[in-house]
């Protein structure tokens, strides 16, 4: 799987209240949630997100609450995947469970807003096409990759229905 897109860059410790403020947790509709994506960080951000964008973040992306609405908001806003120096545990699980690619890259630095970037999951490489720099991503464990490739936990479980029947 390879994703290519223009970057949107955010900093460290972007929490789930920043990704989707709690006032919008009265719906589970991704499109509606997507309209408020990252609004808690900057009210102007939802208007700036381009469909197909790759979100580049610092450390501990998605810390805070367990709200899966955060992943739905990112998906609903049209973000293709998130590349971060590290992720908070629950957000990471939620993303994988919903088949949304989250790529950890501890050595990530120097990727600026609007750069064209490609993310090659198979090769384990993030390429900043604008600067020609390459970054190695932390490899996803086989088990996690299996869920992600299936499209999330529900399709993965359905494929393995025999596990509990």
């Amino acid at each position, binding site marked *: 799987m390879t994703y290519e897109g223009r970057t949107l860059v955010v900093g460290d*410790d972007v929490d789930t*209240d920043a990704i989707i403020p709690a006032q919008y947790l009265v719906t*589970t509709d991704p499109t509606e949630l997507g309209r408020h994506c990252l609004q808690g960080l900057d009210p102007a951000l939802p208007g700036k997100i381009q469909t197909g964008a790759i979100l580049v973040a610092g450390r501990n992306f998605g810390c805070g609450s*367990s709200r*899966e609405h955060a992943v739905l908001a990112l998906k609903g806003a049209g973000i293709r995947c998130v590349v971060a120096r590290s992720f908070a545990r629950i957000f990471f*699980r939620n993303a994988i469970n919903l088949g949304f690619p989250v790529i950890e890259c501890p050595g990530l630095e120097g990727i600026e807003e609007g750069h064209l970037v490609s993310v090659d999951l198979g090769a384990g490489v993030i390429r900043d096409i604008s600067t020609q720099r390459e970054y190695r991503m932390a490899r996803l464990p086989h088990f996690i990759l299996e869920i992600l490739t299936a499209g999330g*936990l*529900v399709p993965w479980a*359905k494929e393995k229905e025999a596990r*509990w029947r």
Partner: protein
Amino acid sequence: MVEAIIARHAGRTVAAGEFVEVPVDFVLANDITAPLAIRAFRELGVERVFDPERVALVPDHFTPNKDVRSAEQCRVTREFAREQGIHYFEVGHGGIEHVLLPERGLVLPGEIVVGGDSHTCTYGALGAFATGMGSTDVGYSMATGKTWVRVPKTIRVELRGLLSRWVMGKDVVLHLIEKVGTSGANWCAFEFGGEIGSLPLDDRFTVANMAVEAGATAGLFPPDEEVLAYLEDRAARPFTPLYPDPDASYAEVIEVDLGNLRPLVARPHSPANVVPVDELDEVPIDQVVIGSCTNGRWRDLLMAAEVLRGRRVHPEVRCVVIPGTQGLHLRAVREGLAEVFLTAGAVLSPPTCGPCLGGHMGVLAAGESCVSTTNRNFRGRMGHPESKVYLANPAVAAASAVLGRIASPEELFGEGRG
């Protein structure tokens, strides 16, 4: 201790970092996370939950329903609970999930508990491996009675000494979060040991509750006599406590001298941005919130009442007190705490998570500051993005309500440090 609990459930030895599928003993969700969990459950094509006695849905975040849309989310949750015959705690019969479920004896030592709420780790105070997950994970667990976990590394926290009068579990955990940072314990579990008897059980709930603010998967205390006595008349089913292996090795050992701790405050906008109250410059405040899954228990209410008894809330401060459950609210009425709060000029709210996440019952306007006994002070957490939240223990919150600025109870009681 975490490894021992996972190993017993997996039926084999496990090592930190490993991915393991385990049976779960209890599954929960709230009015925000349940609707999505129910959707995942339906998509799995399963008819019934794995065991109705071991699933609870607790409406607490936007309840009593704050608007039509939250009412609809509660309706979806309630109807599913009725259909499946699982635990559902209606307004007037329940409270905040992480205060309520231990009170009802539904989460127990040695168990694996997964919940659609990041503060599910609260039950670590009872010696359970309890961890927060998202809705899809919860839907999967409701359907299958299983989950997958990555066995966390263990950080041992050795407690020594005795707490000073106005120092509480909140200060212990804020100190710990300051020490390790907001992601320092990611994919790790805290295991508390040493002189844990120095922390009353209510304070241990606070400590375990905020383990997630350091990124931890869980925070566990070994279940001592106090825990076993607490559960004697309330445990909903038999349980087998597990304790740390004396030869266990740890990723890291942290020592905390309880006697040296002072009342602390976490400044905006991070729970790790910690400073002793008495080193803070003067911060005028607009609101105080005393309650939540972090600090809405009996000792929390008692400490706040001790400060507010015979005093008045500052005329420019709104003080909202929220007992964690219906039972605690009733006890506060019976034992005179309600009168203390109301006489002081605080309002007494029904149990709800409400203001903690900017839901209702005390949302902040632009430029306002709040001292809150809750767990997160992220930007915009309690309302407008330009509002500020300072996290503190209930005694500090109450003293701040009286003085109209962030203050230690020591100022009101004429004591020096300690």
